[in-house]
């Protein structure tokens, strides 16, 4: 069995996530297979694309139910960018999309001066810079880190979601991924 299942929802840039896992010496497989998602030692829900098509894909394949089952059984899941947003109850994106509802909260459009919010930004309280590329953002009581006033991470039970892209955040990102994997 691979160390990590990277959940496939049809539009994600899964190559970069897998490349960073390889750099960290972990094996990975891209899959939407429900049994693979429930059984894997670690699951990453990656993040590129639109909320609606991602949710439709996850629902059709049964991956959505498998992620909920995994979360309820305390299996570790890391959500990246859209992957974080999908875990919340609902998103304003694409005219309104229901999420997985693993974590209380909503996804709203950013109100920053420039959208998309693109580039490296400090994350507090971790005091490290990570790479962001987003137009929507989480508002959740489970927020555990912020960046320039917007939610940068949420954590509830075995779900950890980050708005930034650790796989694109150089040494800081690889160190972050390694910590997530080694804690699991």
């Amino acid at each position, binding site marked *: 069995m691979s160390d990590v299942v990277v959940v496939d929802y049809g*539009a994600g840039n899964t190559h970069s996530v897998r*490349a960073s896992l390889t750099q960290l010496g972990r094996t990975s497989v891209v899959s939407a297979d429900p049994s693979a998602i429930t059984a894997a030692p670690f699951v990453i829900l990656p993040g590129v*694309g639109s909320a609606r098509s991602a949710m439709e894909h996850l629902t059709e394949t049964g991956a959505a139910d498998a992620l909920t089952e995994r979360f309820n059984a305390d299996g570790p899941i890391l959500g990246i960018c859209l992957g974080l947003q999908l875990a919340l109850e609902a998103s304003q994106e694409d005219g309104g999309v229901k999420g997985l509802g693993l974590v209380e909260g909503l996804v709203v459009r950013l109100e920053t001066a*420039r959208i998309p919010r693109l580039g490296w930004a400090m994350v507090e309280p971790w005091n490290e810079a990570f790479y962001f*590329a987003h137009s929507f953002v989480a508002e959740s009581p489970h927020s555990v880190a912020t960046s320039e006033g917007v939610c940068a991470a949420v954590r509830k039970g075995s779900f950890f979601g980050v708005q930034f892209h650790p796989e694109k955040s150089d040494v800081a990102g690889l160190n972050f991924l390694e910590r997530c994997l080694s804690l699991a």
Partner: protein
Amino acid sequence: MPLPRLIPCLDVAHGRVVKGVSFVNLRDVGDPVELARHYSDGGADELVFLDITATPDESATMVDVVRRVADVLAIPFTVGGGIRSVDDASRIIEAGADRVSLNSAALATPSLITDIAARFGSQAVVVAIDAGDGVVHTHGGRRATDIATVPWAAEAAARGAGEILLTSIARDGQRSGFDLALTQAVRDAIDIPVIASGGAGSARHVAEALAVTDAALIASIVHENPAGLPGLRRDIEACGIALRPLKEPS
């Protein structure tokens, strides 16, 4: 605002990084993967790869370059040149690029911007504009159109572009500093980020650009001396521009 970005640009032809002036006298300067790693280690915030051959025959070669670069790189990168359809963009993004850059294809078919953004998000679409004398140029800056620069940038943003890569043709390769007035005029007209390009000759030039916009593209200034990137970063910071703090591998 996120921290200003320093973005080395690599021209690629037939799977190799090349250097030349106006597409002539191209000289092989190395393997894209090795150079990408080198710039990443030196503190590049992001990279841009431009396929300057941009012919359909070469697209498979470029996809292979993208895949090999994505295997070793842990910073974002954009790929431009020869992307004329959503399928072209999909191949590049699925191979591991974060964003695609559209230039003449966006002028010819503006709906392409919207179609790619709908599939991959606005952050995945950069529209490159080669500007001179107030109008957009095509064919590597050699041919003027009758499309005014600032309205085209606004239209690209309205159609879903996530960033504008704005090159001043007059300044490109001159190393005399960026066209700050042009950069400011475009940036003031839109609410997406703008990468300034053309004219970087010194750290001060880059700092001047980063004081007015979100990112600066640098080409010859680093290709002449790739090992000089960390020093360039320090010199830019000495001009009062805060860049992202770099971490040593643990």
